């Protein structure tokens, strides 16, 4: 993990003091709400339906056990005992009092955490693969460059009042697990034949009202240029992005309006001015940061672990969990474990209690070198677990409701907070997610359906990424009541696709049954080991529509 030095600590401490002062000036009336708004957003503080929400940054989704304990303490002492992990690898606390924010941030600063730029029209948390640095299919570790980008974008004075929010993700594995193509800038990192690090730079992705997948703007950019190139993109965007309409202010709209070629020319012209200047990264800086991310010294594991093998044979539940919830690791004898935050109807997707956080911290200390990751799917990951420890870990995870064997399955739902919390919502998300999870509680059925991603957003802002779910559910408002529009065929990753609307919206009550019908059609139509999304791609929407809208009955 990256270790803060005196600069990082000084910056975070000063920021806490600065924001405390801004809060007290707000409370005294010296700052109007309008003046305070961007300041609080740049410190992660949203005003929601019932209370303030504080979003705390988890840079590229990496946490130490002590940091997770600090988050647990915030949940316990300042919130209602839980937090919500987000698709961009952060955590949100939903029930925050403005007066306490300074104390919360000070507590976080003590463990090298902050909420800087977790919202607002600035560069947000840099996100990446939850298995970064350990995945078997990874080419090289993206975390050092993610940290370098984090530092460079933090309180970068020129780019704090962009036209709109700006999100950057990077990944370097053969599978893209960071939804790179729905980011404003997406970076695919790899090595050339001479072992030099290169980037393919993507630009202009984003969901929301106008979902657009990013397009390549520059191939094979040598790593030294990372900061200067990103700076060139940001400067062009800051100068020319639209500011007259907040729904047209994201960079995707500028890229679309100019066309990728004209946009790329603008960036190139800007870049020529700054390329090879002081913003060029140095090998020394890369090495300095990369030193923080050296792998732990893994105790060697036996080639064949009889005990692990017999536990698998003995306990079908354990075997199923190992099959679903572990991910191949670079190091022989090790895996990464995903702890599901989607137990079903008991807890909203992504919500984790303070007690669970503390337990995960203990598990990380005991079995995982003290490190935890937050996945894009809102689950928690222990990146380095010896296979020999899996059984003990599984038992502990079961005890605390974190061992649901549903990673990648239909009930591993991504959902935004929706109408229960969010003042922008058209409809609730959480109860719909829970009703679907309940409908598919049967693990046999779930396994049989295989990989299906299901994403729910409570409104067009698309925080739940419904456009890129294999099944997407969008809350819509019809004359003041809550309805849900379904899309199918969306996908994230390198083969990202936007789902297509299947037809008129449904009531909340009908949604689980409609999903069940979609699943049924898939089971009838699939060929061999085809996944849901492949079947949709092959047969199209028609058979699904025919089942869900029999005889074209007229709906409200």
């Amino acid at each position, binding site marked *: 993990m990256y270790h803060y030095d005196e*600069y*990082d600590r*000084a*910056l975070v401490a*000063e*920021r806490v003091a*600065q924001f405390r002062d*801004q809060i007290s000036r707000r409370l005294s009336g*010296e*700052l109007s709400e309008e*003046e305070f708004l*961007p*300041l609080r957003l740049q410190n992660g503080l949203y005003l929601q339906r019932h209370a303030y929400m504080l979003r705390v940054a988890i840079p590229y989704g990496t946490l130490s056990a002590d940091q997770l304990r600090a988050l647990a303490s915030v949940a316990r002492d300042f919130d209602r005992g839980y937090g919500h992990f987000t698709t961009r690898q952060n955590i949100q606390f939903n029930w925050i009092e403005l007066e306490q924010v300074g104390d919360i941030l000070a507590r976080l600063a003590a463990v090298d955490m902050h909420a800087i730029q977790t919202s607002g*029209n600035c560069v947000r948390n840099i996100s990446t693969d939850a298995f970064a640095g350990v995945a078997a299919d990874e080419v090289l570790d993206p975390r050092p460059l993610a940290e*370098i980008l984090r*530092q*460079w*974008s*933090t*309180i*970068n*004075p*020129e*780019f*704090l*009042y*962009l*036209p709109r929010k700006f999100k950057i993700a990077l990944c370097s594995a053969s599978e893209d697990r960071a939804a790179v193509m729905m980011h404003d800038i997406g970076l695919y990192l790899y090595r050339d034949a001479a072992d030099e690090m290169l980037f393919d730079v993507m630009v202009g992705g984003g969901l929301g009202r106008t979902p657009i997948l990013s397009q390549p703007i520059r191939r094979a950019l040598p790593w030294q240029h990372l*900061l200067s190139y990103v700076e060139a993109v940001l*400067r062009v965007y*800051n*100068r020319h992005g639209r*500011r007259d309409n907040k729904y047209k202010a994201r960079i995707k709209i500028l890229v679309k309006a100019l066309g990728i070629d004209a946009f790329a020319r603008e960036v190139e012209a800007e870049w020529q*001015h700054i390329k090879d200047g*002081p*913003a060029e*990264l*140095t090998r*020394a*800086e890369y090495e*300095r940061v990369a030193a923080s991310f050296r792998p732990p010294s893994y105790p060697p594991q036996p080639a064949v672990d009889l005990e692990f093998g017999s536990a698998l044979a003995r306990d079908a539940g354990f075997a199923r969990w190992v099959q679903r919830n572990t991910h191949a690791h670079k190091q022989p004898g090790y895996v990464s474990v995903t702890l599901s935050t989607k137990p079903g109807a008991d807890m909203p997707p992504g919500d984790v209690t303070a007690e669970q956080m503390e337990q995960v911290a203990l598990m990380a200390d005991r079995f995982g070198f003290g490190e935890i990751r937050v996945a894009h799917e809102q689950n928690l990951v222990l990146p380095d677990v010896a296979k020999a420890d899996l059984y003990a870990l599984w038992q502990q995870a079961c005890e605390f409701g974190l061992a649901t064997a549903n990673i990648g399955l239909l009930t591993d739902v991504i959902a935004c907070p929706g109408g229960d919390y969010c003042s922008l919502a058209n409809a609730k998300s959480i109860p719909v997610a829970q009703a679907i999870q309940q409908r598919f509680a049967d693990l046999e059925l779930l396994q049989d359906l295989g990989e299906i991603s299901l994403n729910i957003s409570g409104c067009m802002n698309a925080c739940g990424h419904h456009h890129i779910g294999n099944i997407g559910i969008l809350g819509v408002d019809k004359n003041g009541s809550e309805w849900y529009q379904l899309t199918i065929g969306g996908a994230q990753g390198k083969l990202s696709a936007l789902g297509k609307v299947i037809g008129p919206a449904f009531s909340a009550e009908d949604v689980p049954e409609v999903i069940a019908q979609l699943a049924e059609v898939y089971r009838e139509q699939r060929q061999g080991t085809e996944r849901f999304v492949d079947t949709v791609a092959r047969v199209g929407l028609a058979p699904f529509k025919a089942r869900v809208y029999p005889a074209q009955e007229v709906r409200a």
Partner: protein
Amino acid sequence: MNNLIRLTEHGPERVNEDLWTLALTGEEPADGPRILSLTAWLQCQPESVLSGQEPSADAVCLQPDDEAERLQPYLAVLPLIAVLFPSFRDGRGYSQAYLLRTRIGWTGELRAVGDVLRDQLSHMRQCGFDAFAVREDKSAEDAIKGLNGMSVLYGRSAIEPRPLFRRRASEC
């Protein structure tokens, strides 16, 4: 303009007798010299100013849609450049200032005008502004407190051309 803060060798100072008037519509009453919009400035300068032979009596104010590069030919004749923040949330002025300082080569006074508030002053300073016409309903005295901002700048800026990783390296 009232409520002005200017950076000097001795640190930030409040200026009470600034003679400039921001005259973006051209109709503002002005006793002294005026700061004009780019269009108005270009229109009313005599040929001797536009060709660089004589200093201009008027200053220019860039608005967010203006390309800072358009001032390149006139640096030698301009007495002052202002950059307008119509709203403090419109960040184009930061890039304009940065370009004026680092690329276009403006070394004279660069003044932030408009919705200029305490909590943005340090960012403005980093981007190269050296004068700040604080919004008139706010206290310039208070606003001065916002100038310093953070002691740490990770990246680089108009006043600190080297990113932290280069400064860090040169320390040891």
